[in-house]
């Protein structure tokens, strides 16, 4: 079973040299820390920046320089700033190669819910609906089950949707899964110490197991 850092490390392996990547809040943000040497990636922050650098050193924070999670950040050589309309323009135009974000629920056909719990939470969707509607390549980073112990991989989502048929891959503390419309959650890899049976129990939607399932390799 992986911790959050393990999930981030595994997802980092999906990032290819030259990619432009948008990272959501939470576990996805951690991914930036584990991108392999030699893999050059440009991070897009949807509030209007390409080339997002690490957090600033103490005392060097700049209120005019934040990411989409409202955290203080820094520039890198080659950074460009732009406005919100162009930011989502480049997302919509398919220029961002990979989007990594969290989810409350994902369904067998790739629907995702991550912005609202009716009657309980009304924070808003932020840029998530734009990202999932436009990105060609969406990886969800999340826990396999919620705090109540219920599976977050479902036959169909119960919460209000963020997007339909858009999630391609899911990485949880238990497994790496591909979402294949018409088939279900195809199990690609299991986490160290986790059995296929463990994963099956934690997956409410249809789990597809094809032959031997390799164990994740994480550095």
């Amino acid at each position, binding site marked *: 079973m992986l911790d959050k850092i393990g999930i981030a490390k595994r997802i980092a392996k999906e990032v290819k040299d030259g990619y432009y990547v948008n990272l959501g809040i939470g576990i996805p943000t951690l991914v930036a820390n584990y991108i392999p040497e030699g893999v050059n990636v440009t991070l897009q922050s949807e509030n209007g920046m390409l080339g997002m650098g*690490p957090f*600033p050193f103490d005392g060097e924070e700049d209120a005019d320089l*934040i990411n989409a999670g409202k*955290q203080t950040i820094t520039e890198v050589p080659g950074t460009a*700033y732009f406005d919100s309309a162009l930011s989502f323009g480049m997302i919509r135009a398919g220029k961002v190669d990979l989007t990594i974000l969290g989810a409350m629920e994902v369904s067998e056909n790739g629907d995702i819910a991550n912005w609202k719990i009716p009657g309980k939470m*009304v924070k808003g969707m932020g*840029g998530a609906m734009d990202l999932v509607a436009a990105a060609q390549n969406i990886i969800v980073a999340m826990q396999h089950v919620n705090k109540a112990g219920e599976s977050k991989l479902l036959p169909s989502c119960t919460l209000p949707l963020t997007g339909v048929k858009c999630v391609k891959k899911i990485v949880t503390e238990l497994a790496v899964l591909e979402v294949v419309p018409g088939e279900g959650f195809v199990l690609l890899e299991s986490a160290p110490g986790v059995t296929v049976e463990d994963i099956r129990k934690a997956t409410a939607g249809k789990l597809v197991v094809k032959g031997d399932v390799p164990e994740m390799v994480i550095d």
Partner: protein
Amino acid sequence: MNKVVKNADDAIKDLTDNLVIMLGGFGLCGIPENCITALVKKGSKGLTCISNNAGVDDFGIGLMLKTRQVKKMISSYVGENAEFERQLLSGELEVDLIPQGTLATRCMAAAYGMPAVWLRAGVGTEVAIGKEVRNFNGVDHLLEYAFDADFALVKAWKGDTHGNLIFRKTTRNFNMQMAMAGKITVAEVEELVPAGDLDPDQIHVPGIYVQRIFQGSNYEKRIEQRTVRKS
């Protein structure tokens, strides 16, 4: 062509009740602090506010929520504000939640004189309810309308007496398109310079879009999430 007004009070003196206003900024980054303070002081009520966020309890648009000046928020994310949540759950406040890119693009549509555009965000979700859907190249899109705002209140880094604006780093966010989208655009700037002092190649918003400009004061520029690394 001189668009300079004395201060925020002067700039919003005719911002009366029940108007639709845009407010620039993302989170607390690049918000028109002086205009918000003046608006709280003036006390205009029944406002519809188009703003990506709703500030925090004691800063930004949060100040206008406390004084109950806001009838409706049109935003993409409002999750940092307890007073907001209270007014919303009690029914005192209307909220229209819109995908962030759609929000920005509906500002841009107004800026570019386009009444409506086709956007894909939210198809198949509850934000698509009641909207016209059309398929282009195999992908469903929603018909989204340009915003129609009486005022746009924006914050820029530098501006000149003709209303030309330059933003700094990630403060450009919604400020740029909103500055071009309002019927009356009020720009507050950290540094106001004579026309001719800004490099004409570097201007983000041409002055033709700005009706009033002033040099703001006492900027707090509060940081919402101070994150640092160890040296």
